[in-house]
């Protein structure tokens, strides 16, 4: 009796499975159904223009990942697509990213841009950038961010990270020659001397972009770390003080480094950031390079080296001095998709997005509400910033744009100009500014 029931049950199960299988395999087409998906047609887009490092085989760029995470957040929240365009110069003879950016902003090619400090100041002055103080997220920004990015009373750019530049040192090589990490220009010079004497042809790996940090560290150490910063800047803006007086010691110091062969001016003039000098540093042929904070976290830059990496400030009489420059996101004043772009920017600069960004890249957040731990290599630099000891590489409050102009004048120095000629260039810039 039991066996019969089991047989019946088995038969019913088999029939059921067969029916289900046939049902699953059958595909009944509804002739009235539109087979084309039109979902993508109405999707909103905004165009973003930003720089991008060259990709490495089989390596993910963490900086991009962090940025992409926040963009993804915006795309999901706002149901739109962010189109990303970039430009990288093939060589020093080609247009720079900044030059291309200026063209694109002026021609209203895109909606959202990631701009360098000099470009921010230039385009802000031309009134090509939108005032971002309307954004909700702008209320959370640290004051230094607001100060550095305000041009003609408008907050024209906001960064996702505070970009602090420092010296990246191979601590193992310093230990090998019993060298202490340098604090002052003299100590740094001595270290370079020892390296040189020990057969390291060029102790400092330099590129055409970031040597100016040596200048800023020595030029503005007192200005930004004293009590009368505003007054001193005011004196400069009024012409009562000369930028060249501030800049001279740094240029002379750079000149000495070049003359003593600690920096190869010829290659530095042509090298793009990280791409060339970075290889020698990672190969432990060069003990010293300069780079920005996030490079210590990125596999595409100096993340996970085979040696003990330490990041310190640039030498100054006040000790290691971080140089803080402000890159930032800006919106073209006549952007085609203005409202959507504002919404995207508000999202990627929200505390939630900045927390995600800062945690992913281990960087200093522009929001006063976001704090994250940094990696060990960055602690010396981080400690100085936490102690409010740093100089700004760009300041929209100064009537002479600092970051871009100094970079160009340093290139002149690399190209053979004398320090006096360089100082004359600063004087000329100051005169032009005062004449406006």
């Amino acid at each position, binding site marked *: 009796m039991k066996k019969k029931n089991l047989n019946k049950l088995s038969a019913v199960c088999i029939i059921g499975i067969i029916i289900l299988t046939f049902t699953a395999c059958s595909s009944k087409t509804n002739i009235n159904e539109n087979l084309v998906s039109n979902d993508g047609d109405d999707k909103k887009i905004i165009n973003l223009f930003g720089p991008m490092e060259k990709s*490495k085989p089989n390596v993910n760029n963490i900086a991009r990942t962090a940025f*992409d995470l926040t963009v993804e957040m915006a795309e999901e929240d706002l149901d739109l697509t962010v189109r990303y365009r970039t430009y990288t110069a093939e060589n020093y003879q080609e247009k720079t990213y900044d030059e291309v950016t200026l*063209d694109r902003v002026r021609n209203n090619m895109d909606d959202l841009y990631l701009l360098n400090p000099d470009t921010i100041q230039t385009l802000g002055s031309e009134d090509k950038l939108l005032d971002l103080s309307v954004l909700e997220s702008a209320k959370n920004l640290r004051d230094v961010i607001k100060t550095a990015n305000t041009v003609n009373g408008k907050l024209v750019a906001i960064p996702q990270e505070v970009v602090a530049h420092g010296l990246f040192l191979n601590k193992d090589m310093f230990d090998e020659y019993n060298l202490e990490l340098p604090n002052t220009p003299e100590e740094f010079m001595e270290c370079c001397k020892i390296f040189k004497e020990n057969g390291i042809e060029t102790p400092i790996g330099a590129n055409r972009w970031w040597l100016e940090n040596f200048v800023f560290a020595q030029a503005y150490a007192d200005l930004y770390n004293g009590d009368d910063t505003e007054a001193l800047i005011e004196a400069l803006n009024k012409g009562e003080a000369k930028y060249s007086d501030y800049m001279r010691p740094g240029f002379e110091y750079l000149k000495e480094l070049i003359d003593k062969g600690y920096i190869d001016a010829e290659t530095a003039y042509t090298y793009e950031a990280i791409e060339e000098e970075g290889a020698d540093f990672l190969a432990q042929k060069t003990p010293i390079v300069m780079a920005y904070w996030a490079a210590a976290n990125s596999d595409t830059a100096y993340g996970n080296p085979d040696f003990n990496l330490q990041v310190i400030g640039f030498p100054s009489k006040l000790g290691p001095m971080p140089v803080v420059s402000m890159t930032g996101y800006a919106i073209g004043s006549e952007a085609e998709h203005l409202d959507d772009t504002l919404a995207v920017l508000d999202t990627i600069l929200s505390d939630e997005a900045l927390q995600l960004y800062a945690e992913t890249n281990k960087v200093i957040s522009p929001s006063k509400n976001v704090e994250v731990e940094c990696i060990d290599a960055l602690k010396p630099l981080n400690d100085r910033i936490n102690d409010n000891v740093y100089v700004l590489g760009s300041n929209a409050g100064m009537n002479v744009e600092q970051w871009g102009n100094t970079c160009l004048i340093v290139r002149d120095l690399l190209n053979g100009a004398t320090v006096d000629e360089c100082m004359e260039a600063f004087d000329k810039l100051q005169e032009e500014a005062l004449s406006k």
Partner: protein
Amino acid sequence: MKKRPKRNRKGSLLISIILVFCILGAVVFSVARKTSAEMSSSAINNLSDSLGLVKGTIEAILVKEAQFQKLIAQEIAISKDPYEFIQFYDENQTIAKISLILEGETKGISSSGKTFSEDALDFSTGKKIGDLSLTQSYLNDMGTWAYTMKCPVMKNDKEIAVLYIEYTFDSLEASFPDNFYDGSAMLYIMDSKSERLVLKPTGMGERDAGHLNLADFYRANNIMDETLQAKVAETVHAGHNIMFYHDIRNKNSLIYMWSVNDGAFYLIGYVPIEAIQQEGQSVNQNILIVVIVMLIAFFLCCILYYFNQKQQQTIRKEREAEREIHNKQLAEALQAAQIASNSKTTFLSNMSHDIRTPMNAILGFTTLLSKDADNPLKVREYTKKITSSGQHLLSLINDVLDVSKIESGKMVLTTQEFTLNDLVSSVDAIIRPMAREKAQNFYVTVTDITHEYLIGDETRINQVLINLLSNSVKYTPANGNIWFRIIGQKQHSAQYEHIQIEVEDDGYGMTPEFLETIFDAFTRAENSTTNKIQGTGLGMAITKNIVELMGGTIDVFSEVNKGSLFRVDLELLIPSEQSDRQFWKDSGITRILVVDDNIEICKNIQTLMKDTGISVDIASSGQEALCMAQHACDNESGYQAVLLDITMKDTDEAETVKKLQEIIADTIPILFLTDCDGDDMHTETLFTENVGFLAKPFFVSAFKEALLNMRLMQDKDKPESESKGDAIISGLHFLVVEDNDINAEILSELLDIEGATCEIAENGQLALERFERASIGEFDAILMDVQMPVMNGYEASKKIRLLDRPDAKNMPIIAMTANAFAEDVKDALNAGMNAHVAKPIDMSLLKKTIHQYVS
């Protein structure tokens, strides 16, 4: 035909299955491969088609741009002021700039109003769209990649100016498919000469967007094979398409380079193979799933089949085992039946022989008797032999009937109080003459018995002992020895006496094979010697059954030519009142002396006398006995009886008795302990007053009886055994109730011989009527048969007892019947009869019984 081994068959089956699976696997694999190859080919074709379509679209756009430029040139040709015409144009995403240089001038003007010169443009590539020259790609003032076509402005077949229009590559992006292969495929536009990537993928997370040029594309995607790069360069230079496999980010990918506009630009990019072969993989996956499901189903079926087979095999094995057991049981039953049949046949044959033998003797002697009737000596001899043969015949019949009773489970034990003394005496009385006749020595010992009076079926115990001992006598040659021992064992319970009975001989013994069947019915030890011995072969079976019925055990140990030992263990109930203390008190006996050099016997006597309250002193020699007697007399605590072993060494019994009688009073009884009856004693001197004999083994009851006999002798001073029977029935008148005329006549004659008379009644009814009519005291007793017509003996007895006569209750009624079983005795007593005497009639027993009930 030879049967193939099972293992080979299984191996072949396994190989066949594996072969089928191999073929199936090969077919599935080849189908999957074929499908995969076809779909791969199809996928590559689809990719080619897609790239061709994009290429076609781009080329169409370029052609349209060229046509548009020609139209503009025509418009300019007919315009009054060409410069004014172009300045009306506003820049847009497709056309960045329109410029014009008039014929004969090196500089012109752009739509932006700026001065324009051809120097900034590179037309050296020689590439054309339609018939318009095309520049190398460059980064324009808008910060985007662009190209310029130049078109002559003709008026009246004369070139009046050159029109330059700058187009952006961004405008070509619209020709790219959305989500190319689900976004996994990349597409770039590369300028052929500079190898710059002038249009890159857009969208979030595009690492590929960072590639600068073809070299950077190679580096970033790890395509570093120089031969491959050279081949690509050669193909690009020739303006041909190329597609090749390479791993990109650990995924096998297809890299493609599609020539656009005769190699002016190239569509380049890559797509992972898995993306284009998604459908093929899906099909293969489905095939694999189906195959796996089928395999699982097949293996499930195999497992189910295996378990089913295993179960079937187990059931089959169980059935076979069951059948084997059944067959075995049947065979055994058959064998047992055959053995039983054979045994019964043998038994019948034996019985036929055994019955015919005494019957032949009876009939033969009756013939001789009739012939020699006048010769009293001969008549006595013949009748003696007829009696012997008749008794043998009777024992045969009794055995057969016992077996029948046992087998039908109707045997019932009749328990009553008895003494071991009676048991041993009766057995001794039967066996000893038999042993003596065969010149065998028969030894009887009783040791360690604490209770002499016991409750049990004396008759059946007697039967067991007679069976065992008579066998020993039978199977022991002349001058052999037979031992009969009763040994007291440690009691398991205070209420039961545990006794062990041993019957041992040093006779022929038995083979081990025979020992196995010794207790089976209808078996009998046979050899050249014993063949001469009569027997039914039932004795041991009856013995064993009786012992087991009593809750005892029987064991046998035997060796051929060495002898046999039968050991019976029994536990018999001890009666509450063990000994008659009053008798000893009345007799005035409080202390006795036992004289025996065998200390064991003395100790036994002490043990047995324990319950009587009599003090037993022991002396191991005559001299010691005399000393003790003297000492007792001196202390005025003399002995009231003396037991003296007659076989003591170094002791002159007669002298000892004499001296004893001098010390103790000559009225004190002195009893000689003998190994046998006093008949064997020829020492006339021992027969003096107050001297008697007591046969070993010692029993209290025998001692008591001996003392009583001595007193009787003293009282009557004449032999006891003489004329005892005559005195009993002589002159008595009986009512004999017997339906069989012959039996009635025999009985009548026998009674007549004994001096008694009788009246015959043919059945119970007649007997009842006759007794009713009889006067009081007319009959001294009724001898009643049981099985009779009209009214049987039981009914008649009951009715007699119910008669309203003063002697109805007391009239002795003795059953005389062939119904000789114990239960028949019980039934007779239950019917109101006084006693039971079995047929054939043993006159001495009958007389004894009549004497017991007729005062």
